[in-house]
């Protein structure tokens, strides 16, 4: 049994990322939610997702966020997404940070060692643990 299966429930931000995956958005989970899924005992504050920069994927992201964002009026237009760095969205599962610039810069590199971890009956794409730690060191100090 894997670490995450032993736990009674998933942190809400992990479910937020899982819904994004169910909605067909291509992304890689990083940050504390990714570490939690890798079995690291860590409090999960939000879901950090590196978004694949393809135009079609950004459209899917826009549709998915329109479905589950709490404040629709704060969502940018889909055509603005390719120029945003980070899009912070408050959802009923907590805060989701869409790392759009990181996707434009590092998508291919992060994909090379990414894994898929099952949450409920959805495979959630998660960056490799070493990559998640490296990003944390770089951006959180």
């Amino acid at each position, binding site marked *: 049994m894997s670490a995450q299966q032993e736990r009674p429930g998933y942190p809400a931000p992990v479910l937020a990322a899982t819904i994004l995956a169910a909605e067909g958005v291509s992304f890689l989970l990083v940050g504390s939610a990714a570490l939690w899924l890798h079995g690291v005992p860590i409090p999960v504050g939000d879901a950090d997702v590196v978004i694949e920069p393809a135009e079609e994927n950004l459209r899917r992201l826009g549709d998915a966020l329109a479905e589950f964002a*709490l404040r629709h009026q704060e969502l940018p237009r889909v055509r603005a997404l390719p120029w945003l760095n980070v899009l912070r969205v408050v959802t*009923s599962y907590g805060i989701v940070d869409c790392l759009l610039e990181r996707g434009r810069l590092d998508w291919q590199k992060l994909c090379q060692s990414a894994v898929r971890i099952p949450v409920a009956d959805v495979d959630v794409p998660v960056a490799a643990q070493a990559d998640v730690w490296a990003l944390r060191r770089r951006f959180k100090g």
Partner: protein
Amino acid sequence: MGDRSGVGLVECTILEALDSLGARPRRHRRSAKVLERVEERIGLAPGYAYEVLLDLARPWKMPLLLVDGQGNFGSRGNDPAANYRYTDAGLTRAGEVVLAAERGELAPVPVGLINGNVYREGLRPPFCPQAIIEALREVIQRPRVTSKDLASIVGPPCFLNGCTVTGDYAAMAAGRPTTLRLEARVTMSDDHRRVLIENFPPNANPDEVAHTLADRARMRTWAAEHPGLYGRTHLPLGDLRDESSQARDTDLLVCVPARGTTAEQLREQLMNVYGVYTTVRVDLPRSLPAMLRNWVKAHADEDLLNSLAALENAVRSQAARS
């Protein structure tokens, strides 16, 4: 920021403007006039200054209110405040004390320490006014009081509205960044058929929460493909009623479970909906005991006990009014 009260520059200017117009507790002046004065003094346009003025009068924003608002100052939900041409504002007793401290008529008062700045996306949480006053008195009267005792006198942050605060208080008091969880009060009705949500966290919008709950109860396009996820995320909600009352200044959502679900099961799931709970990141500039000691040390040559007594009276006056 006013060095002698810890209150921000714009806030202090608003208090000065109110005072210059003769606004006092129960003697209100039109907000438009106040904002005109603010613009004359610091050039801040009325639209921006009004947001700050509104916050200073909103009881769900900060423990110690500096402005007494009259008229529609908005709600915690989506109901906005009336335009500044149609609202009135006066100084509260605490507002008067802050002004007196800023002008040197009174020794400094720790209002910035009490109110924090989380309500404006800052990292300093608010604390119970009486607890901060007590802790500062301890530092003045017993300089060797231990840091542990001081942290215990201050207690957890005071996020108002009666919401429950949990988290690593020790880390917060030690000046380390941490995330606190704020939870609304979620209880069962007497007949155990409904779930009642009230005392929302200050950074939650009850109207948004109602919208979210309804949204979480509807069918998803991916439900058939991912029944496991749907089962985990779908809210078994049969009916939702907003029984908030602006007259009583209360927010109350009444949730009726869907057929086949008990109110207890629904309650469990509601506790995991963002909005029913929220999180807030806090990071004090240094440890809480050090902040208290530094505050006393910085003003050691002034009559702090007198100013703390004046502030305590203002706190009592606010409590009596509410």
